[in-house]
């Protein structure tokens, strides 16, 4: 069912409904629906309408500038870009990180995922989950949550602030810091900084446990509805540790198909291109990655919290591991494919992050001063990390003068492109097909997109071969002429 509803056979006779912008997501996107006279859905697309150019304009810049420069892709998950680029540059300088450097980066990244997950759950998603998808739109926002559930809102703000504070202490700034450099980090943790973070960590763990319980309560309250909402099955991809454990900073690539069968496992991510390709479609600025061995039609997959929690064999912190087992038991021992299960998995990960932060804060290596190493100079660097929204791939080539000559970024949200479109189409068929559209019903579409926590500004960074379409309309709005350039650069009328 993957590509059904992607393109209507005769769009000219259909009416067009547009949701623009999609709200409570990072970045700008829109949804278009083509409906017939009986409001039957014939086409549903999730379009990304932003345009960025990072892969192009970092060419000619020195490699050590890149971890700081490319994190400007995003204001929500800059640390993930900062660290993915740093990992790639570690290969350029031939470094094997010291324990202090690696653990400081891991701490920084736990802070990143904590703050991003808290932001998404409390600020963006909780209004839908707590009030209902088609509840009063005036109340369906974080201000409404703060009024109706002040303690939940307060905890959400505090969890995000704590994550930001971890980032500030390790990277120098809450947003767009400079802590990670090729071959290591530029500062360690002082005892004062460690003690400051330790003071609040038990509250953060308790509140994260509360968040998992809240999702379980909401989800379990109407299990059939939540399981069935925008339901589809897919492959999943994520990094896993050598022993199969969840690892957000480093590991090998694992992909499993919709039946749970392994497609590839423990793949050295520096060879990602042997396993993943990208396709361009003429109606979106976001590319469509797919697993090569399964082809363009069948090779799409999901990444992010749901993929990671489904894919891993264990979570290496006890509270989150117990929640993973409960999550798996809910799915009858196999992977959960429900779109809304993303929220549940996301909160399990948030709990893992605060547990991981506590564990690291008690590690004396973080106070060490062996911060940077280097080895044999390389010219190709690949850095892969699990960003809040999923697997993030940075790939660079550097010349002998230390300048970037080529860059390829496959950003987390991009992996989910086809899956988000699939969710939109499922919801359109389940709830909108043949109905009189209301604001509440249209929000069902947004709820499905929101579950993925897409970051659209991150995901639209390609330049050079992007598809473009120009329409000439007469005064009555009728299309007189249309000129289109496809992803291969060919222009057609």
């Amino acid at each position, binding site marked *: 069912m993957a590509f059904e509803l992607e393109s209507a056979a005769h769009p000219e006779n259909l009416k067009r409904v547009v949701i623009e912008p999609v709200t409570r997501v990072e970045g700008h996107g829109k949804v278009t629906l083509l409906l017939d006279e009986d409001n039957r859905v014939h086409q549903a697309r999730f379009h990304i309408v932003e345009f960025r150019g990072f892969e192009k304009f970092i060419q000619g810049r020195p490699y*050590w*500038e890149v971890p700081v420069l490319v994190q*400007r892709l995003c204001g929500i998950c800059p640390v993930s870009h900062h660290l993915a680029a740093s990992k790639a540059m570690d290969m350029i300088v031939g470094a094997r990180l010291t324990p202090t450097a690696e653990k400081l980066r891991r701490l920084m990244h736990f802070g990143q995922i904590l703050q991003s997950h808290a932001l998404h759950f409390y600020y963006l998603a909780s209004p839908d989950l707590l009030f209902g998808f088609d509840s009063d739109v005036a109340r369906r926002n974080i201000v409404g949550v703060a009024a109706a559930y002040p303690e939940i809102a307060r905890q959400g703000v505090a969890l995000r602030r704590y994550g930001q504070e971890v980032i500030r202490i390790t*990277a120098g700034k809450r947003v767009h810091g400079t802590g990670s*450099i090729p071959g290591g980090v530029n500062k360690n943790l002082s005892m004062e900084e460690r003690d400051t973070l330790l003071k609040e960590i038990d509250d953060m763990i308790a509140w994260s446990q509360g968040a998992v319980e809240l999702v379980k309560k909401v989800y379990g309250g109407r299990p059939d509805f939540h399981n069935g909402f925008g339901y589809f099955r897919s492959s999943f991809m994520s990094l896993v540790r050598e022993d199969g454990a969840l690892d957000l900073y480093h590991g090998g690539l694992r992909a499993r198909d919709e039946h749970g069968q392994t497609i590839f496992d423990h793949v050295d991510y520096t060879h990602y291109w042997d396993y993943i390709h990208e396709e361009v479609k003429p109606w979106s600025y976001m590319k469509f990655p797919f697993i090569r061995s399964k082809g363009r039609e069948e090779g799409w997959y999901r990444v992010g919290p749901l993929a990671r929690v489904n894919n891993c064999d264990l979570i290496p912190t006890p509270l989150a591991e117990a929640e993973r087992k409960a999550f798996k038991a809910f799915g009858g021992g196999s992977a959960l494919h429900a779109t809304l299960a993303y929220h549940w998995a996301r909160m399990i990960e948030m709990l893992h992050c605060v547990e991981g932060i506590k564990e690291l804060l008690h590690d004396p290596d973080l106070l060490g001063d062996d911060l940077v190493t280097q080895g044999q100079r390389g010219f190709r660097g690949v850095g892969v990390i699990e960003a809040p929204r999923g697997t993030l791939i940075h790939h660079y080539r550097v010349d002998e003068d230390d300048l970037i000559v080529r860059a390829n970024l496959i950003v987390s949200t991009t992996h989910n492109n086809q899956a988000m479109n699939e969710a939109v189409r499922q919801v359109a068929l389940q709830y909108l097909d043949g109905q009189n559209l209301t604001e509440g019903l249209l929000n069902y579409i947004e709820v499905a997109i929101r579950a993925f926590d897409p970051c659209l500004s991150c995901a639209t960074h390609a330049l050079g071969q992007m598809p473009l379409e120009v329409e000439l309309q007469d005064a009555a709005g009728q299309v007189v002429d249309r000129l289109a350039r496809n992803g291969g650069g060919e222009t057609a009328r």
Partner: protein
Amino acid sequence: MSDTLTIDGKEIPYRPGQTIMDAAMAAGVYIPHLCHNPEFKPHGSCKLCMVNVNGRNVASCTMPAASGMTVLNDTPELNGARRSLLQMLFAEGNHLCPVCERSGNCHLQALAYYLGMTNPHYVQFYPSREVDASHPDVLLDRNRCIMCELCVRASSEVDGKDVFGLSGRGIQTRLVVNAPTGLLGDSALAVSDKAVQVCPTGALLIKRQGYRVPVGRRMFDHKPISVVQTEGGHD
């Protein structure tokens, strides 16, 4: 008459041969400047150090101090003019402070903070300028060059190499390198040269050192440029 002058009403001494800038620095009075560095001959090109002496605007780094001078320095009018000069510098180059490795250590950025520059005001030129990474240890990023000629003077006066010079006129002026190919890697420049140390922006940098100093420990993280430079910090 005694050898004193007044700056903003404060009487300060000077020695014969000193400029207004010399006397002010010796007395701990800050006059904003970019192209001036007390280790080198005055240049008088950036005009940031413009002061008003007895009703006339002059460059304090080149004007000899004289007895009885009444100098205005820290006034809204002069600081406004300085801010405009800075805005022009920002508009005509490509100064991307948020990602620049000299951020926090950059005199241009620190002056912009000191003078309350909150936007570039003028339309950005976005000029196309070359990055020269041919030297094994030094990067020349002309996007950030403000033509202060500190590297030109350092290479000539201290290093004795004449590696750098300015070429072209007006807005076409650019920093050129004394080498058959015009490339830094083919010049006589060494990473230990004074010319590499004096750039007030991020135009000349030692390679592979970027971002080594964490936020919070950079030159201007805790003190404004007025305090850092009156305490003797220039590089």
